[in-house]
């Protein structure tokens, strides 16, 4: 699994690729706490290249989204692989978090919010 973060204006983009399961999910969480949560409350999670996610992945995203919303921000997701999308739909996660086809769309959605 590969993790990286980049800043686009006030929005942090967290890139996750590889496979997300009970073994790798804790790494995502601690990366998020160290590198993202302290800088930003508006986060886009870019899942391009994430080929697999189990419920452990959903749990991490859920925790992250909750934290951002409690601080007045939000977490949005972009570039979801069909295999991962299946898990999102199954767990009804797509009902709680806004999902965008492209990272740019997700970043822009924050900018139009603040206008």
């Amino acid at each position, binding site marked *: 699994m590969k993790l990286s973060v980049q800043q686009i204006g006030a929005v942090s983009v967290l890139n996750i690729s590889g496979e997300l*399961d*009970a*073994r790798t999910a804790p790494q995502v969480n601690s990366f998020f706490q160290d590198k993202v949560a302290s800088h930003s409350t508006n986060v886009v999670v870019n899942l391009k290249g994430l080929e697999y996610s*189990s*419920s452990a992945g959903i*749990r991490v995203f859920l925790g992250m989204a909750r934290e951002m919303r409690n601080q007045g921000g939000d977490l949005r997701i972009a570039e979801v692989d069909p295999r991962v999308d299946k898990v999102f739909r*199954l*767990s009804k996660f797509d*009902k709680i978090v806004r999902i965008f086809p492209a990272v740019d769309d997700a970043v822009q959605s924050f900018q139009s919010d603040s206008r």
Partner: protein
Amino acid sequence: MNTSPFEKGSTVEFLDEIPDGYVEADRDGRVTFANLSFIKALGFSERKEIIGKHLWMFTRKQYLRGMKLTYQTVIESGLPSDYVQIIYDGKNGYYFVGEAAISPLQEHGKVRGTRSMVRDVTHRFETERERAFQKDFLDALLYQAPIAIATIDKTLKISLVNPAFQRLFRCSAEEAEGKPMEHFLSATELKDRLNEYGGQRSPDTAFISGQQRLNNGAMAELEVSVQPFFAGSINYGHLVFCNDITDVRKAEVELVNTTTAYRSVLDTLQDAYFEADARGYITYVNQPLVEATRYDSKEDLIGLHFRHLVDYDSRIFFLNAFKKLFETRQPIRSLQIPYLTKAGTRFSSEVVASPIIDEGIVTGTRGIIRDVSARVQAEELLKAAKEAAESRARELTSLNRLAQQVSRSLNLREILETACREMTRIFPVQSATVALMDHKNHLLKVKASYGKRSPDRFSGDQMIFGEPLDNEVLRDVIEEKQVQIVTGEGGDAAAERWKALFGESGIKALMLVPLITRGETLGCIGMVHRKPGALFHPDQVELAETVTSQIASAMENARLYAQTERALDVAERDLEIGREIQSGFFPRSIPSIQGWEIATFFRAARQVSGDFYDVYPIGKSGYTGWLVADVCDKGVGAALFMVLLRSLIRSSSEQSGDLPPGELLQETISRVNNYVVRLHGRSNMFATLFMGILDPDRGHLHYINAGHEPALVIGPSGMIINELIPTGPAIGFSDEIPFEVGDLPLLPGEIVISYTDGFSEARDMQCLMYSGERFIREATGVWPSAYSVVKHLELDVFSHMGDQVQLDDLTLVGLRRKQDKEVPCHRLTRKAELKNLSHFRNFVAESCRLFQVEEEITESMKMAADEICSNVILHGYQGLPAGDLTVTVEYHESEVRIVTEDAGHPFHPEVTSGPDLGNDINKRKIGGLGIYMVKELMDEIVHERKSGKNHLTFKKYIHHH
């Protein structure tokens, strides 16, 4: 103490600086001293890592005997040896080919050991060997080709003919070789074209055909093509292909002349015959055409449009040819076109057709389709070999050119520019300039400058170095390696010469420092004062010397770096080529055999080392051949050898396809071995292999183990019931020791495992070997399928290796006889640990794919298995040491079923309450999601607690379409 007289300061330093390896050993061959070049070439970093070890440890196996003998002779005779070539093996796969001269170390008139100078000749050795291989490879192809081929030199004299040539022209190789080609192709049309063609080095292929009288007086119609051949820079002359098309022509002539009473004869023809009407619809075919195209019957084909038999890409081409036939009424003499079978498989063919003329009107066409796959294949193989050899030569040349440029400038310039800038910072000077020696013209050339002011202000600096070296000051710097300080004022003669220059450019003082590395002056650095009254202090001289020595060593590093980069680049490219060759020759699919299953595993090491396996049906015999082999070398040479071996074994066994399996096997391996010994003796290549021939109906296995790891037979009870140990030497060792054939019945539930020593020799982080014993221990067990045991051994060897680099290829083939009416199933047991989680889910997905379950269901099974396994791993053994988790995937008539078993805490999926999936994020509970998803994904979940174990079964129904 057995210390070396060389362990005294300066001599050791000297030895460490020479590029050749130097090693001293005692009478037993234990190393007492080695220089840095030798140590580094073996991949070590410190002397103490080598001292005290036997030299034999670093000698490749096949050189060991010779090396020990040479050492013994030197010690006993007290005389130095001739140069010997040895491959040295070091740490982490480091190796090099050394040319060593061994001489005695005398002390008080007695020989107390040896000293050797070892020159690294790896590059030369490998280039030579590769050339030899390319040539051998071609020889092999020529030897096998079904068409007559001769190689001719520039004077059109024959240098080599293959067996097919000897058959066609009814002559022996001795009779043909050395004779001019026109002796065989005497027909004027052939001769003229050949002469015309042979005179030029045109890259085109010439096709000629004509009547030719053969040695025994018979006439034959030949189609001759000529191709030039280059491998690398070596010109092998031309290849002349002679294809006997007498029968085709005869049939064609008969076709045109006969209109009646031929149909009954047509079925006895070997070639496929067709008739079609003017619109292209088939009106008649003979039996061979039905068989060749795999249609059910003649009726199946008649009425079909001809385009169905023609490969899509060739249709336009085909159409035009037939259009021309109708327009000109001229027969099509030879149309090379692939045809399609009913199932869509392509075969190369040659079509000959003529018009059907009825009362002056062309009403249709009739013709013959001849399967020329074998010929085309041989030609393509040759073409591919030729192209590979040529492109390799091209690559090497361009690589060298590029590397030279890199080592000459790129990083060096950066270093020099940085150096100049740094000098102006360290010293209170206005500018600094570096000039390097141009030894050819015996002058200094400015390579970089840096000034604190605008460039024109320090242009004078550069003029200083433009002086010829007969300038005394510069000569002292370069030749005497002395720092020189020149001022505008001083009365010395040297300064006089520069006075004018100083005045012009405002230079007040100048310091020149030589750049020295390994005792050689590379050039010098000049630093310039322009401020009036500025002087260089004597203590600045020492500082300048220190700084320039650092720059010089940086330059040396840059040079070395560029060299290493170049070497690595070439090695990496070599590797890629080797891998490509290797991967292209693994079977694309494993044949399925009724009542049997075969599972394979292969993982290439970083270095190509020539493992391979093959599983294939032997001709029409009904037998299946399978082999696992290990070519005992590395690199492109090994890969080429592997390819050669594989094709030889395949073609050889197919040729003997009508023999009983034991004889077939012996014939195949002996023939291949003799061939390798005869043609490859000089390259010292050999391979160990295990080859089995299975008669699937009788359940009987014949095998030859040629110096390979023993194959294991695992019984249905899980015990190892047989070890199939070597029955002969490695291939290529000797043509005098016969290969024995072993045979045994294989009963239902029995598994044969064959593998390569990549397994037994796999090392962990502490360099401990996996070992054959552990392999046997881990293979012992009740396995429901071949894939189960292969997967287990694969995961077990990788868990042993950890993060250690894989040094050798890993190859494993498992063959299992199915039991009557068994439920197809695969099983995997690992520790319930997070690191195994991905293994479990990938195993489930792979098992489903082996059962050909559709992808959608496979994905669901994988996800469900992941959730269940995560649960067992995270909670099942909480507070206990991690126990085993077993996952079984079963394939039933109407469902795919997964069963997980663990000995952890009792687990009840139905008790775990479902998660709250409401839309309020703060109310939503986080746990329980996994189990909820499994329930959504699966059609049925059952939990049982049996004899202290959790058995969780989950199923997905499948529908057969």
